[in-house]
């Protein structure tokens, strides 16, 4: 992970997304109009969040199997970045909803679901802060992380399909696949997902390294 090519790739893809997403041509659709450009900034946040949460669960499992504290640090820092991505996803979604639905928060099932998802991970951070012993903290919070992820998946991927929602892709609204047919969007959307996710991984990597340096300083004192 110390190689720099993927960081350069991530940053240039994000720049490409910002410039291309705002300036290049987008399909004109009723109601959505130019707000369709929000897709390049809103949807990749959720993609990045899910990818990083999955990675976090993977490291939690590895921690439980090996007992190496390194993996626990990976898990918590991935969750921290995921929360940031989740908050940004909510914020960009609310800006978009302000223009298309007429209100920033309308209690749509998708909005409620993502808010509950964030609540789960706030609880995870709270749990970590309430245990003093490092090994105990790592073990207990790994268990909670895995358990929370197991209930998060039905919340985000199964429940929204059972209800009607105004969100694109639900209840007869044209969804991701309908826009995907348009090459002009696809050309920016896929690089955007990769770019934002790489940026998130870089953020996480910096925090992890900072953590290791801090613990080494603590040991020397």
């Amino acid at each position, binding site marked *: 992970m110390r190689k720099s090519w993927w960081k350069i790739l991530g940053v240039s893809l994000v720049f490409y997304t910002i410039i291309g997403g705002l300036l290049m041509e987008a399909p004109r659709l009723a109601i959505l109009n130019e707000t369709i450009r929000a897709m390049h900034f809103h949807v990749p946040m959720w993609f990045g969040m899910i990818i990083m949460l999955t990675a976090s669960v993977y490291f939690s499992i590895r921690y*439980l199997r090996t007992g190496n504290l390194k993996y626990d640090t990976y898990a918590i820092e991935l969750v921290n970045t995921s929360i940031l991505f989740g908050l940004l996803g909510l914020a960009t979604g609310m800006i978009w909803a302000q223009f298309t639905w007429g209100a920033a928060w309308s209690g749509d099932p998708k909005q409620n679901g993502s808010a*509950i998802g964030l*609540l*789960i991970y706030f*609880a995870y951070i*709270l*749990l970590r802060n*309430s*245990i003093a012993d490092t*090994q*105990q903290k790592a*073990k*207990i919070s*790994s*268990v*909670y992380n*895995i*358990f*929370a992820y*197991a*209930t998060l*998946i*039905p*919340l985000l991927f*199964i*429940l929204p399909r*059972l*209800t009607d929602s105004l969100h694109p892709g639900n209840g007869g609204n044209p969804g991701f696949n309908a826009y995907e047919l348009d090459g002009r969007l696809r050309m920016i959307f896929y690089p955007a997902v990769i770019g934002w996710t790489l940026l998130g991984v870089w953020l996480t990597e910096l925090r992890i390294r900072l953590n290791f340096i801090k613990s080494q300083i603590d040991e020397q004192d």
Partner: protein
Amino acid sequence: MQTITWNALFWIIIVFANINGVAKSFLQEGEGRMLYYYTICKPQVILSGKLLFNVVLSTLIASVGFMVYAFILGNPVSNHSYFLLTILLVSIGFAGILTLVSGIVSKANNSTALLAILSFPILLPILLVAIRLSKNAIDGIDATLMNEKLFTLISVDAIVIATAYLLFPFIWRS
């Protein structure tokens, strides 16, 4: 009272009764007794025992709650078998979540406040399906339309209990 309010109030009561009643399972055990359990049997056995007791307790809370509630505020339910089936499935799911979270909290700082904070967001997915199912049961919607949600509830229960069995040995060992 409107049926929507009836339904929402009923489930709020059930959730908080469950958090206070079922969640006590590990919080009330002393250090010494935990150690004694640890020496005599495997973690899976402990979890099975706790889980069975909690499922029975949770179902009891919910059904007694339903009876008293229906007696006092009137009973708008038109499809009773589906309503009771929902109560049973929700009780299994709640018991599974609260048993494991209670185990987690007993290793942290043993406070009921932390337990409520940790368990509430993960109870919500089950609760959301339950509210929709019971609303359908109250309105007496055709059973074939409800089966899909019922299967969702069953699969969420299965996920919860399976992960609880996988993860419990790790909390128990410490």
